[in-house]
Structure formats: C-alpha cells, structure tokens
C-alpha cells in the first residue's frame, strides 16, 4: 500500500502508456497517406482473432494440474455459452455467469 501522491503518479504513468499503445498505429499510418493493403486487410480480420485471444488472456492463471483444475472457470464459461446461445441476453449471460462463478469459488470449490 502506497500513499495517494505516489498512487496518482503511477496512475498518470499508466494512463499515458495506455494512450501511447492506442495512438501508435495512427502515428505510423497517418490519414494523409495511403495505408498499405496488408494493413487494411489485417485491420479487417484481426477483431475476430483478438477476442479469442482475450478469452485465453482472462484464463491465463488457471492451473490444470492443481485443485480445482480450472473446473469453476469451465463450468461458468459453459453456462455463459449455453445461456447466451439460448437467450442472447447480455445481462443474463454475464451477470448469471459471474454470480455462478462467485458461488462456485466461494462455496463449492474451496
């Protein structure tokens, strides 16, 4: 735990760095110049791959070998997939899945 002043400094650093990662493509490929075709193509197909990667990113700290072997995550994701396919209701899928996960790790897989 650090003080408020130090925290604000760290927060500012994180804010500037975050903006930096977002602005770099626009600096490399300015709107005045023609963007290379390969970049236009990547821009089109990347979104699908990136969301898949983000799911794996969220699950990165699961250990398959140690108890509970990623079971709570597996069950909760299965719930989200089934409920979302069924109802297409974002609140139900996300809210329900999260509450289920919290119950699983707080009460069942302790």
């Amino acid at each position, binding site marked *: 735990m650090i003080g408020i002043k130090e925290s604000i400094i760290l927060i500012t650093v994180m804010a500037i760095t975050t903006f930096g990662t977002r602005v770099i493509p626009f600096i490399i490929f300015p709107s005045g110049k023609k963007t290379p075709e390969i970049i236009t193509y990547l*821009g089109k197909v990347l979104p699908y791959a990136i969301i898949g990667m983000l799911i794996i990113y969220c699950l990165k700290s699961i250990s398959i070998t140690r108890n509970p072997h990623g079971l709570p995550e597996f069950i909760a994701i299965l719930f989200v997939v089934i409920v979302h396919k069924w109802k297409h209701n974002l609140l139900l899928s996300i809210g329900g899945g999260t509450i289920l996960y919290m119950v699983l790790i707080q009460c069942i897989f302790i």
Partner: protein
Amino acid sequence: MKLKALRAAFPYTIPVLFGYGFLGTAFGISLCSKGYPFYLAILMSVIIFAGSMQFVAVSILTGGLSVLSAFVITLTVNARHLFYGLSMLDKFKCMGRKKLYMIFSLTDETYSLLCSLETPSYINKNWFYFFIALLNQSYWILGTAIGSIAGSVIPFDSTGIDFAMTALFVVIFIEQWESSKNHLSAITGLTVALICLLIFGPDNFIIFSMIGIITVLTFSRCYLEKRIDK
C-alpha cells in the same frame, strides 16, 4: 444532428451498459477493498479507461511498484491495443477533433462495437462513433463510482467478481462467431493464444500471441480475403 446520432448510438451500447456497469462496479469494489479512496478509482476510469489494465493496476498500486515497472506492465497488458488502431485507420480518418478522443477511448469493447456496427444511413457517422465511445466510457465511470462508493460502505466477499470480464469476452466471441461465415480468424486467435500460453507462460504470452496471430493471418490472406468479402 448530434441528438439524432446519440439516439441512434444508444441502443447499440446497451450491452456495454450492462457489461461495463458490472465490470466497473467490480473494479471499484476491488480497488476500494484494498483501502483506496473512491476518487482514485474514478480518476483511473476517467484517465486510463482500460478494463483489464485497471484490474492489473490494482495490484500495481497495492504492490507499490516502481514507475518503470508500471510502465512495462502497462505496455505488455495493453500491447494488443497497438493493433486495434489498424482496424480504425479508415473509420477515424475524417473525425477532426473527435479523433483524439476516439483513439483514447479505444477499449476492447468499443473496438468490437465499432468493428461490427453499420451506421444507419440518415445518421452522421462521425457523431455516431463518437457517442458510442462516449456512452461506453460514461458507463464505465458510472459503474466505477457505484462500486467504489458502495464497496466502501457495504463489505461483502467480492472474490471472483472479475469473472464478469471473461464472460463479456465469451459473449462478444459468440456474437462475432454468429455474425461471420468464416471462423478461421476466430479459431486462430484462440489456438495461437493457447499455444503461446503453454510455451511462454502467463506473464509473457500476449505479445507472442499477437505476433503469431498476425503471422498466421498474413499467410492465410489469399484464402481469407476471398471469403470475407462475400
């Protein structure tokens, strides 16, 4: 004109309203449960505005890491954003002064909305995009405020609440899957990231995954381009 665009944008952002409301609340609770004041949580949601990064930031702050480590971690967690702009170069081209805010607010969710949306023909496209981004951030700030203020009043066990983030991506993944006929890109994202996680471990795999994904997608360009335009 602006009001029309706002009205047209709002329905598309409703899913994010719920997702961010929930996640923002989770973030607010998570930071304030560590003893931080609510205004720091809100400040972070105003000036950082990056979902997963802010959750990581909680541990950076509590760990009291150095400025350099904070910089390096932010860079690795957000490295994927380096590639999000590639899909937006054209979309943001004529946005004038709004462009800067659009770039600042390009989160995972705003990115995936902007990628998948068709602007209604009677609406000014630039204001439409702008309001999508602005509404999304306002939900995030609102959620943070609720979580950080209520979180410091009502103590309850919030372990696992950050699963909301995972659930949100699973939902976006399903929606993208259903909206596209070709799944090569989605499958590439999942498998390359999984393989990189197994090889490089949880701390370093994201940047290798991005490189791997871009390599695979570049080599399958001929195959994919024929199918995506159909």
